[in-house]
């Protein structure tokens, strides 16, 4: 059984520092396990969010050795033995305490997106949709709302003031999902262009790289949304044709 040193950020909005904790880490553990060992033995009040411990709930996001990750899916054997592992809260959102941040921005943005508005059902009250038509939507709906993409996006990471006019990659995924939903009839193009601020994204792809669900955020969500906005504003006829034919 190996000893490891975890260099964990401790503190709140008033300030804080990294504190070293050395504990035993049996074979096969993930970062979250070791954080739990620290919590149970050395720092009972260490604040951390988690639920599923299996990469399904998106609660345990943190920056491990500077890289945004889900702690429950980050194996300890990824790191060179003998060196301390730094665990810090995600940076883009205001700190509450230790590894816990205030992610309420995301819940506020979710409210601004107009609801799903389905077309009327078939005569039997249900819908027919082919698997190929739902594949793309299903890719987007894999999102576990870990907000790691929000964390790395420089538009809000380096410029918190942009949060007023930029929804962030997670919500471009949501918007793309609604826009490409085979049943949806709502028009959100103006919102995507303006309130969501899609023009501010310069396609660095950092969001795609960190997504634990392998959602192709830029290629499959953001770029098609940008195209829609462009079509609409520079080629309204093509846009109307698209709406009518579903292309």
């Amino acid at each position, binding site marked *: 059984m190996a000893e490891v040193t975890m260099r964990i950020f401790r503190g709140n909005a008033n300030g804080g520092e990294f504190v070293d904790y050395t504990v035993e880490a049996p074979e096969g553990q993930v970062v979250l396990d070791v954080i739990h060992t620290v919590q149970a033995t050395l720092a*009972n009040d260490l604040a951390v969010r988690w639920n599923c411990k299996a*990469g*399904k*709930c*998106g*609660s345990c996001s943190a920056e491990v050795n500077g890289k945004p990750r889900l702690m429950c899916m980050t194996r300890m054997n990824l790191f060179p033995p003998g060196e301390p592992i730094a665990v810090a809260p995600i940076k883009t959102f205001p700190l509450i305490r230790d590894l*816990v941040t205030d992610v309420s921005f995301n819940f506020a943005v979710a409210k601004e997106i107009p609801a799903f508005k389905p077309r009327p059902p078939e005569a039997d009250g249900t819908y027919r949709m082919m698997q190929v038509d739902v594949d793309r939507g*299903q890719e987007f709906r894999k999102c576990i709302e870990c907000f790691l993409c929000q964390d790395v996006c420089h538009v809000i990471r380096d410029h918190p003031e942009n949060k007023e006019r930029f929804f962030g990659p997670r919500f471009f995924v949501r918007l793309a999902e609604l826009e490409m939903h085979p049943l949806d009839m709502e028009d959100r193009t103006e919102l995507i262009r303006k309130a969501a601020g899609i023009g501010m994204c310069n396609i660095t792809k950092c969001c795609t790289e960190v997504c634990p669900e392998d959602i192709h955020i830029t290629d499959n969500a953001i770029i098609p949304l940008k195209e829609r906005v462009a079509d609409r504003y520079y080629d309204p006829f093509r846009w109307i044709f698209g709406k009518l034919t579903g292309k």
Partner: protein
Amino acid sequence: MPDYETHDYDVVVVGAGGAGLRAAIEASAQGAKTALVCKSLLGKAHTVMAEGGIAAALGNVYSEDNWQVHFRDTMRGGKMLNNWRMAELHAREAPERVHELERWGALFDRTKDGRISQRAFGGHRFDRLAHVGDRTGLEMIRTLQQHAVHKGIDVFMECTISRLLKDGDRISGAVGYWRESGSVIVFRAKAVVLATGGIGKAWKITSNSWEYTGDGHSLAHWAGADLIDMEFVQFHPTGMVWPPSVRGILVTEGVRGEGGTLTNSEGERFMFRYIPEFFRAETADTVEEADRWFQDKNNNRRTPDLLPRDEVARAINAEVKAGRGSPHGGVYLDIASRRSAEEIKRALPSMYHQFKQLADVDITTTRMEIGPTCHYMMGGVRVDADTAASTVPGLFAAGEVAGGMHGANRLGGNSLSDLLVFGRRAGLSAAEYAKSLASAPRVNPQEADAVARELAAPFERDGESPYAVQRDLQSAMQELVGIIRTQPELEEALQKIQELKERAQHAGVEGNRQYNPGWHLALDLQSLLTVSEAVTRAALERKESRGAHTRDDFPKTEPEWGKVNIAVRQGPSGTMTIQKEPLPQMPGELAALLEEKK
């Protein structure tokens, strides 16, 4: 006097999983001013982890399926101890609740003709589970959450309810605290809906998260409501066993639904040796028939790998005991040799991911090692089937925290549908009840103050760490109140629980009230210990084996015990009492359904 904020609502829903969200949506649609309170962030409740699917007799894959067959499967899976009316409503209403999710934006996997696809699961006669790969719970919770967001429901996230308040014999509100700041919050409410989920964190090997400390069960019990069926705790047959840190994490039954088989160290498909008399007529007894069943369910009987969970968990337990287990104390689950890599990744993407990342195992080429894990609580708040009302006026319960629906054992997929059917009913009835009240119940400020003081108490103590108490409780429940039970062990467990209660009284916490998990755990210990005691007492009382409750000293299923539920109540001096209560009587036409051949 302690400081706190106060809020007024018609309906306060405690819990934001599938049941709580569906209840809040319904209460709010009825015009009730509704609050939704949850311990975690919105969208992180246990429901998000559900994998396999939602059971509903849509008849999309097998047109022979209908609510009657679903009802029958559910009752038989529950060893006939289910509340028949709940099982009936559930089977009848589940299809409409699933279609409703689709109208709200859910994207289920499709059949070739574009309808909602359905997969096979344990104990279900036909392919019945609507699903999205193996992340059905995520689809469900997101759909409900996204639907609820525009409905004017006030959401209180990371807010834990610690006590219910009463005015005379009826509910008048609830007290809790914000996890972030530690400050106290009081709700004045006409009605409260409990949708807090389960109790699995009382065991060491579990698929459940830190949230599952039995809060709702305990809140109801302390408020004087009845609990029933507390002896029935489901151990899911397939949890991960290696490496140790992931022990207990769920491997969906969908693996077997997609064709996966269970084998022992000798390579034998051992389940054929464990077909119980009760299911013999409907279970394949040769490998050939079992394999044909995956393609043609009408002319073949179900593979024993998909017997109800209690049967499979016991069989695995027995194989390991007999020395035919895998290196790390489980057995094998094999999908690699049964389906192509492509098919596996398509149908079970998160299982593929989970094993690859957590165990360095590629399930498209290698067998998984699996073993039983504590998973689901059948027992819970006794409710009226139609209204979800508990025995306390103004208190409602739905989802895993409610008892009765699943009897002695739940079938896979029947929980997600249960959440929708009874979540809706609970929200509806709570709103109606709130409307019917002539005057709002009164909250007694002294009562609220007393709770606030109790919440602060752990900071004034300097006893041992609450983590140590929790660890010892989990070990005791794992060893003494597990899959196979005996009287001496259950008595020993009761003894230990008493000692742990004493220790919990002294457990102290460090730090301050701001987002302090040690403090949260010190408070959660009260409910963990309450439900542990309830399970143990009920298990001692039921002197037979039925469904998920197996007594080594009473191995047979006794017809007499099939006529009673065990009710757990608070006695006059706060002690826990146990009472046998007759099962509600099923009407003749439903009983006839159970007699009919499959």
